[in-house]
């Protein structure tokens, strides 16, 4: 039978494939319409904000719009020697415009970030303009350089030129404790100011260990849940889920009550004589607190996928393993454990991804040494109002999660995940 020559036709003579497509098209449209609200929702609440975050994080248009003429004339300048008269003239025009709009302060702030010292000299220039000291028919170059010696320094003009592109990677570099130096090369910030890298590493470390702890604690619970008779397993399931239904804040607050130095756990240790009353260990406002509280809070995310996978493993498999001569350990390790890997994968991925972006718990019980990168993001969102930096770090976090996912896919295979 050659399938090429003998095309199967329907009774009406239309090729079968074609009429099948036609018949299925309607269903496809229906299916699409059904998911379209969700699609729309996702676009509005997920794709669009992420796009917005991305543009915000690299956006540097403000200064580009402030000094349009300057940047235009700077295009011809090679950045080696002092710029020509043309650049000075345009800079004067742009700055005067800003002064009229009362926006020169913003410019000074922005340029000062690029290179220290701009604030002072721009203030001087501003005063000269206010007092009409600048002769618009004379040489701008001479007049401006004479205001302050820094205007005669080519470094400052280079700094202005660097701000010309409407986009900048500076926020991302800052997130990794790097910056573009005056030569335009990436270099490290001073050692005592490298805070972000510590936070990133700490976040990874905490997420990693919380995942491990959740796995070590969740695996036996899930196994028990899957194998106990219904009446006990239901009760146990409620015990697992009950914290899940309690507000995150309440749970974190209860950990605070338990873990603080005058808290219940410490009182108990003192009571049984484990520690002296005057040397109660600090279990909160450090990493210990973060570990304990996060492990407890994220435990259900480990238990539930594990449980759903274990539930499908027939108990006769373990029995078969034993009856064939495997010790209970061998039967577990060679038969049961490999079958739970999809659940382990799902649980670990879930816990790790949630832990890497965890915010409230470390903020409340973490103290200085237990806060994570998301607390830093929140700090910039709420306190410094540097949203573009917060966006940049948020996106770096997202990229990190995607990388984890990618590594996971390479190691275990996403097809091997089973969430339920």
């Amino acid at each position, binding site marked *: 039978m050659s399938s090429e020559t003998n095309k199967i036709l329907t009774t009406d003579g239309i090729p079968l494939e074609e009429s099948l497509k036609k018949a299925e098209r309607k269903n496809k449209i229906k299916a699409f319409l059904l998911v379209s609200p969700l699609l729309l929702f996702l676009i509005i609440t997920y794709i669009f904000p992420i796009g917005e975050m991305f543009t915000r994080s690299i956006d540097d248009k403000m200064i580009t719009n402030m000094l349009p003429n300057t940047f235009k004339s700077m295009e011809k300048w090679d950045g080696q020697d002092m710029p020509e008269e043309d650049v000075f003239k345009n800079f004067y025009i742009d700055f005067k415009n800003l002064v009229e709009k009362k926006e020169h302060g913003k410019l000074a702030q922005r340029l000062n970030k690029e290179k220290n010292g701009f604030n002072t000299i721009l203030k001087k220039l501003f005063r000269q303009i206010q007092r009409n000291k600048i002769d618009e028919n004379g040489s701008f170059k001479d007049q401006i350089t004479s205001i302050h010696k820094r205007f005669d320094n080519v470094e400052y003009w280079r700094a202005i030129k660097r701000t010309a592109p409407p986009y900048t990677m500076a926020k991302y570099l800052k997130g990794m404790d790097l910056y573009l130096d005056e030569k335009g090369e990436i270099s490290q910030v001073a050692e005592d100011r490298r805070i972000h890298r510590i936070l990133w590493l700490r976040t990874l470390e905490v997420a990693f260990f919380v995942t491990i702890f959740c796995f070590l604690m969740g695996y036996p619970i899930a196994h028990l849940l899957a194998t106990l008779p219904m009446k006990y397993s239901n009760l146990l399931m409620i015990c697992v889920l009950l914290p899940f239904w309690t507000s995150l804040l309440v749970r974190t607050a209860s950990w605070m009550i338990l873990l603080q130095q005058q808290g219940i756990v410490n009182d108990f240790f003192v009571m049984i004589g484990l520690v002296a009353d005057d040397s109660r260990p600090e279990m909160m406002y450090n990493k210990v607190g973060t570990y304990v509280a996060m492990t407890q809070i994220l435990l259900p995310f480990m238990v539930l996928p594990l449980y759903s996978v274990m539930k499908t493993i027939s108990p*006769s498999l373990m029995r078969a393993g034993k*009856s*064939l*001569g495997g010790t209970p350990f061998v039967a577990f390790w060679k038969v049961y454990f490999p*079958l739970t890997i999809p659940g382990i994968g799902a649980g670990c991925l879930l816990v790790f991804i949630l832990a890497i972006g965890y915010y409230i718990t470390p903020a409340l019980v973490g103290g200085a040494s237990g806060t994570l990168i998301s607390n830093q993001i929140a700090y910039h969102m709420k306190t410094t109002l540097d949203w573009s930096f917060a966006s940049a770090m948020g996106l770096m976090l997202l990229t990190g999660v995607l990388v984890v996912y990618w590594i996971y896919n390479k190691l275990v295979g996403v097809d091997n995940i089973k969430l339920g």
Partner: protein
Amino acid sequence: MSNNKEFVKFAKVDKSYDGKVLVVKDLNLDIAEGEFITMLGPSGSGKTTCLMMLAGFETPTNGEIYLDGNPISNIPPHKRGIGMVFQNYALFPHMTVYENLAFPLRVRKISKDEIDKKVDKALSMVSLAGYESRMPGQLSGGQQQRVAVARALVFDPAVVLMDEPLGALDKNLRESMQYEIKHIHESIGVTVVYVTHDQGEALTMSNRIAVFNDGKVQQLSSPDQLYESPVNSFVAKFIGENNTFVGEVVDVSKDKCKVKLNGGGEIFANPISVKSKGEKTTVSLRPERALINPDGKMDNSHKGKIEEVIYHGDHTRVRLNLLGNNEFILKVPNSSANLDIKLGNEINIGWNSTDARALDPK
């Protein structure tokens, strides 16, 4: 073929799960070496519990189980060396067929060459040579079943337990697998303890059958004896088809008794478990032992009215109202002679009193 009559021995075994109800009561059972014995019974009769106790997954509440003379109650399952075929095969889904079969050999630290040899042999025994690298999920139900059988046999266990292994297969496949398992048993001479609730399966395969009900062995005998001479009314009802009459013994001699039926009329029967006048009894008669228009030699002869005629291909099944029992079934071979089998006709039915077994009243 057997040398040890008590290769597996259940001695006074009781089993209770909750401390209130005995699932297995005072079980005494000897299984000879090389025997194919089937535990047959309705669900909840305790047969699977017995198997699980033998395998080591349950411990007897009282009594002891011996394997080749040694008590095994305190030996964990993995040290008993008993092969087991599970109801749903219990093949390891993440291992290939080869790995499944090699599992019991690997845990016994057998050399790689030896494992290859044994796996090859076991697979060709179930005619699945060449399937080594398949995953269980890629096999059909029947093939999975064969792999499970091969896996239970590959490490040469002294006893193989099979827990309703054919339950999930369709009828044709089940029948061919029955023969296959029987042939494997005959060719390697392993002791098999087989659990099923399918009497056909039990009758075809076993050397002996233990009929379980209510935690007790009701009868332990060869398939033909079980069918021909059930010792009580449970066995009679459970095995094969059965016509019953309920009544009271009015006269009894050594090999014949007269029973007055509750529905009126009197019949002669073979006194199996009745001894004296006035006892209640259930008389059991196999449908194929009753004949239409009997000759004078049969000591029971009664008129019955045909209520239903069901065509079964090779035979016709006739339901009659006979002596107040309107569930009386008659199996008539399909031949041209049976012309007057029509709904509503009255016909003469007769049988020998030796075939009508007067059993306990239940």
